[in-house]
């Protein structure tokens, strides 16, 4: 235990004085009313040694005083190892590369505790960080630890690697002394020289964190994004979480990654629909805030959705219009096929219409879509020019032009170099020839267009090959050749792929830059993986340099380029991770173990306060004033407690009325022995009971499981019997059921097989025959909507449960002795599963074929059953009244 102000402990010497003082002071007198005052007053003049405070009270007070003195002296527990080794100033060497980002707070805490130690032993401290910098690294000169604290607090990890060579050079300039090295565990190229320089200085203590250093890199593929995590090997396996985030920080997806024990690599696949995928701006490792755990995504990782209109014969391989477009677009775009309505239902980057006329309703829809910002790419074809010419960038001339061929003088034309436009920069290949094309009227705008279209590509003689015009907020692009190889071999060439790709990028709003232009840094990651303004000293890179550069102070990781054309520069693509060996001869320590300082002062003061409180209570007791004080305290303290308790009393206790089933009305179900079926029956009947309680005046308690033959059935108006394939009859069982039916009970037998010949529960039909062997089942007929059961509460014409379609059988003749109520109802629609709900009231089983009405009808049938069981043929009597009224009216 160490003390912040040990001088205060001298006050402990005063304790004996305090003892003497407390002992000499008599305690406060007790108050007593006394009538024979006159006699007492006459006794007064005599002097008496006063009564003394009891010794244990004195001890309590002294203990409290001692605790206060010790607490104010500021004791602390822990606080790092003992004396610093060696002589001379301590060098605090901190790795501030990207690998130090995730556990930076622990590193700072370790640095602060080392500064505390140095301060306590009045050693001077020099500070050196190893993160790479533009200016050469220099250590802060040795100074008292207190002066370095603000500098240490202002340290932050850097989003690039460490420069150990410069650090070694800086170390050699310092005087000899011990070194404390807070290492990040990642190897660098100049580790050997670094280790030698550190060792040459004096005894070394190396502190290492417990977490491995990690780097995240991502590759994009048409199927999804694959994240690769490289880490330094660890003994225990870890699971990391990779989170995909949008530009404003919302997490869209996450995937777990398992790093095995001793593994250095792991992978995870994240597949998302392309709309979500295109929103992702970065992938990061959860709970590892560092520049190495963030991977920024740019256009290369995105897949734009392209819709291709299908036409008859378009899919024919090698001949169809669709074939080449699809091959060209598929590596970087998601292709969807369909007709106009389906394609335009989802957001789309480009709509490709190979050789199709868009007219009528389709044309209107596409027109509206383009006006709102859609991109339409059309290809010419034999039908073009003849039909209406809506939705074309320029007015086309009739007919087409043939170049080359048997009946023509000219040769198939080559392409001219691309003018400035979206295709600028693409190399024109000499292999591409065009033998047939449609021609447009130059300079004439299409009807309905504001201005004439632009030419994006042209042939050697200047006729346009690709024209485009803006229409509303969108654009229409026309290739004057077909999408297959009929009119030109452009679709066969790689140029087609690039041209389509440029169009896709243009449609996404991404302006493609010239490859040679330098890209300035737009946003950079800091040491904690947060995007922000680029640091001073960051320089622009060209796109080719980006591929080969290593993140450093002049090229921080982040986003480069202008707003339309962002390229991501990530640590994960360009740096490798390998574990660093410890400096030979260093004392290794854990980062967390060294630095916990527990201040004991407040605890001791709190204890002293408690003791003083106890002293107060005891003194009050000795003076006889304890009762009123406690009464007041109790009143003040316990009223809210009692209030809270009375409010917190649980509303519903367990339903104990199963003990005496006559106290409430219960529905009952036969215990079949199959746990699943029994639980379904129970939850079904309780769901039905809740529904009945909510919708009718009947009050049902929780359903009761019964075993006929063992339990008394006379309390239950309705008995639900689900038949399982293993059901069998027992004499006691059958006679109990017969008894029950004879005395007015209703048994609902459910074979749960569904309408299609019991296909959902095989074997139950046979089981029913077995189980009902001795039952007095009367003659049955199907339940129609003329029966009272179909009118007992709701008017029903069908009686579905979980399934529907099976016939429900009821007694055929009216038995006046049983009040014309059918004692048995047999069906196969598995009603309990339709009624079953969980504690929150949500249904447990889906209805087949489904629809909300089926479950509602199942509940209504249940209500009808309950009403039929509780009220008999009451509704049967009333049913005649409307008929009579109707007849009277006629």
């Amino acid at each position: 235990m160490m003390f912040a102000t040990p001088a205060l402990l001298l006050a402990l010497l005063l304790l004996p004085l305090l003892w003497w003082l407390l002992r000499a002071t008599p305690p406060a007198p007790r108050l007593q009313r006394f009538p024979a005052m006159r006699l007492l007053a006459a006794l007064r003049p005599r002097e008496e040694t006063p009564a003394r405070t009891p010794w244990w009270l004195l001890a309590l007070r002294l203990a409290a005083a001692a605790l206060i003195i010790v607490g104010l002296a500021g004791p602390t527990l822990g606080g790092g190892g003992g004396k610093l080794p060696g002589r001379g100033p301590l060098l605090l060497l901190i790795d501030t590369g990207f690998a130090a980002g995730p556990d930076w707070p622990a590193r700072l805490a370790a640095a602060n505790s080392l500064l505390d130690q140095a301060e306590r032993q009045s050693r001077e401290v020099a500070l050196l960080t190893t993160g790479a910098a533009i200016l050469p690294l220099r250590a802060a000169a040795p100074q008292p630890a207190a002066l370095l604290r603000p500098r240490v607090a202002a340290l932050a990890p850097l989003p690039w690697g460490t420069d150990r060579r410069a650090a070694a050079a800086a170390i050699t300039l310092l005087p000899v002394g011990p070194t404390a090295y807070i290492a990040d565990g990642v190897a660098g190229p100049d580790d050997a020289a670094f280790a030698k320089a550190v060792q040459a200085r004096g005894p070394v203590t190396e502190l290492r964190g417990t977490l491995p250093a990690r780097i995240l890199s991502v590759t994009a593929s048409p199927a999804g994004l694959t994240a690769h995590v490289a880490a330094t090997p660890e003994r225990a396996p870890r699971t990391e979480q990779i989170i995909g985030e949008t530009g404003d920080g919302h997490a869209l997806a996450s995937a777990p990654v398992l790093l095995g024990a001793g593994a250095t690599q792991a992978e995870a696949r994240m597949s998302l629909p392309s709309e979500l995928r295109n929103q992702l701006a970065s992938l990061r490792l959860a709970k590892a805030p560092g520049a190495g755990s963030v991977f920024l995504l740019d256009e290369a990782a995105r897949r734009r959705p392209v819709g291709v209109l299908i036409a008859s014969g378009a899919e024919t391989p090698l001949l169809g219009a669709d074939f080449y477009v699809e091959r060209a677009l598929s590596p970087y775009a998601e292709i969807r096929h369909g007709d106009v309505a389906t394609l335009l239902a989802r957001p789309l980057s480009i709509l490709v219409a190979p050789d199709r006329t868009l007219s009528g309703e389709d044309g209107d829809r596409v027109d509206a879509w383009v006006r709102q910002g859609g991109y339409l790419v059309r290809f010419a074809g034999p039908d073009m020019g003849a039909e209406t010419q809506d939705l074309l960038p320029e007015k086309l001339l009739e007919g087409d032009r043939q170049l080359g061929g048997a009946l023509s003088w000219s040769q198939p034309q080559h392409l001219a170099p691309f003018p400035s436009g979206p295709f600028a920069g693409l190399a024109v290949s000499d292999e591409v020839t065009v033998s047939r094309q449609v021609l447009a009227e130059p300079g004439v705008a299409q009807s309905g267009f504001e201005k004439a279209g632009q030419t994006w590509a042209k042939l050697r003689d200047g006729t346009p090959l690709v024209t485009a015009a803006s229409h509303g907020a969108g654009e229409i692009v026309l290739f004057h050749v077909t999408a297959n190889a009929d009119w030109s071999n452009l679709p066969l060439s790689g140029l087609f792929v690039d041209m389509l790709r440029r169009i896709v990028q243009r449609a996404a709003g991404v302006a493609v830059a010239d490859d040679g232009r330098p890209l300035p840094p737009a946003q950079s990651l800091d040491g904690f993986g947060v995007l922000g303004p680029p640091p001073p000293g960051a320089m622009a890179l060209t796109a080719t340099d980006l591929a080969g550069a290593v993140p450093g102070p002049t090229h921080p990781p982040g986003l480069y380029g202008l707003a339309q054309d962002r390229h991501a520069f990530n640590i994960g693509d360009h740096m490798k991770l390998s574990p660093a060996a410890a400096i030979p001869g260093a004392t290794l320590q854990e980062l967390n173990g060294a630095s916990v300082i527990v201040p004991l002062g407040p605890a001791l003061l709190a204890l002293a306060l408690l003791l003083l409180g106890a002293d107060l209570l005891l003194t009050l007791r000795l003076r006889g004033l304890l009762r009123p004080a406690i009464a007041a305290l109790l009143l003040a303290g316990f009223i809210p407690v009692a209030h809270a308790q009375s409010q917190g009393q649980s509303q519903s206790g367990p339903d104990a009325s199963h003990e005496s089933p006559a106290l409430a009305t219960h529905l009952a179900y036969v215990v079949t022995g199959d746990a699943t079926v029994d639980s379904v029956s129970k939850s079904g009947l309780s769901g039905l009971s809740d529904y009945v309680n909510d919708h009718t005046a009947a009050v049902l308690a929780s359903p009761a499981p019964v075993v006929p033959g063992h339990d008394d059935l006379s309390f239950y108006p309705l008995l639900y019997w689900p038949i399982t394939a293993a059901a069998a009859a027992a004499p006691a069982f059958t006679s109990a059921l017969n008894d029950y039916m004879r005395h007015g009970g209703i048994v609902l037998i459910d074979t749960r097989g569904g309408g299609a010949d019991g296909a959902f529960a095989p074997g139950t039909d046979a089981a029913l025959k077995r189980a009902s062997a001795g039952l007095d089942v009367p003659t049955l007929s199907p339940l129609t909507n003329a029966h009272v059961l179909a009118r007992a509460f709701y008017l029903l014409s069908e009686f579905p449960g979980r399934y529907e379609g099976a016939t429900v059988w009821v007694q055929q003749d009216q038995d006046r002795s049983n009040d014309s109520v059918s004692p048995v109802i047999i069906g196969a629609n598995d009603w309990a599963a339709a009624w079953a709900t969980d504690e929150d009231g949500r249904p447990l089983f889906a209805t087949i074929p489904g629809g909300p009405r089926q479950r509602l009808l199942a509940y209504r049938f249940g209500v009808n059953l309950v009403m039929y069981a509780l009220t008999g043929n009451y509704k049967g009597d009333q049913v005649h009244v409307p008929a009579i009224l109707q007849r009277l009216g006629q």
Partner: protein
Amino acid sequence: MPQPKLIAQAEASGARLPPLLVAATRVASTVAQGVHGRRRVGVGDTFWQYRPFVEGDAQTRIDWRRSARSDRLYVRDMEWEAAQTVCLWRDASPSMAWRSGKTLPEKRERAELLALALAALLFRAGEQVRAIGLPRTFSGRGGLASLAAALPLSSEGLPEPRRVPAHSQAVLFGDFLAPLSEIRACLEAFGALPVRLHLVQVLDPAEMSLPYEGRVRFIGLEQEGEALIPRVSGVRAEYASALDAQLTGLRSLCAAAGFSLSLHRTDHSPETALLALFMALDAGARRR
């Protein structure tokens, strides 16, 4: 107009009257079974004695049946059953309204209980009761409630013998811890009248034994001031001797005046005190 405080006090004491009356009648009925008659000659209904006829007796008083049995003439004497008046006083000063523990009654309650129980006994025996200082005489069955309501709620000091009829008896209930000179003056005032006086001293056991410990500040109940006793256990013996001196003084005063004195502690039962008091009253009546 009576002050509101007194009215409140009266209502408070009236509210406790029924239990007090019940307690008083119960105590009285416990004692009443052992009471005999007046044992003297006088006007009454009960036969007392036959005595020989002497010149001067009225001739109508000769009992002929007894005289016929012998040669001499006898006069039939009846026992004296004439009601006598007893005057009661109980100390209602603030120093009486004190008790040392929750299980004991206040001294004043016990004094009232004794007074009303005595009155109940006397009413049952046909006597008349008055309260010292008030003109009204109570007797008969409803007399107990009226007497209880008429007892003054607070009093100061010792009573003066006002409105005490001659040849009656007076009973004073109190703690008599006043200075002996005051008590002597009071007893002399009563001694001047032809009245038999009985004193009943009601004390709390704590007043007699001073069971406190440690450093105690005692506060008087009648604004007598406070006394800080640094160590009570050291003072106890002296206090006991002071109290003893007071009691002895009181006893000698009563003995000199011929009055009876009895001491009652509130932790003893009231029935024994009442019996002793009743016997003393009887003896006082007979000694005329």
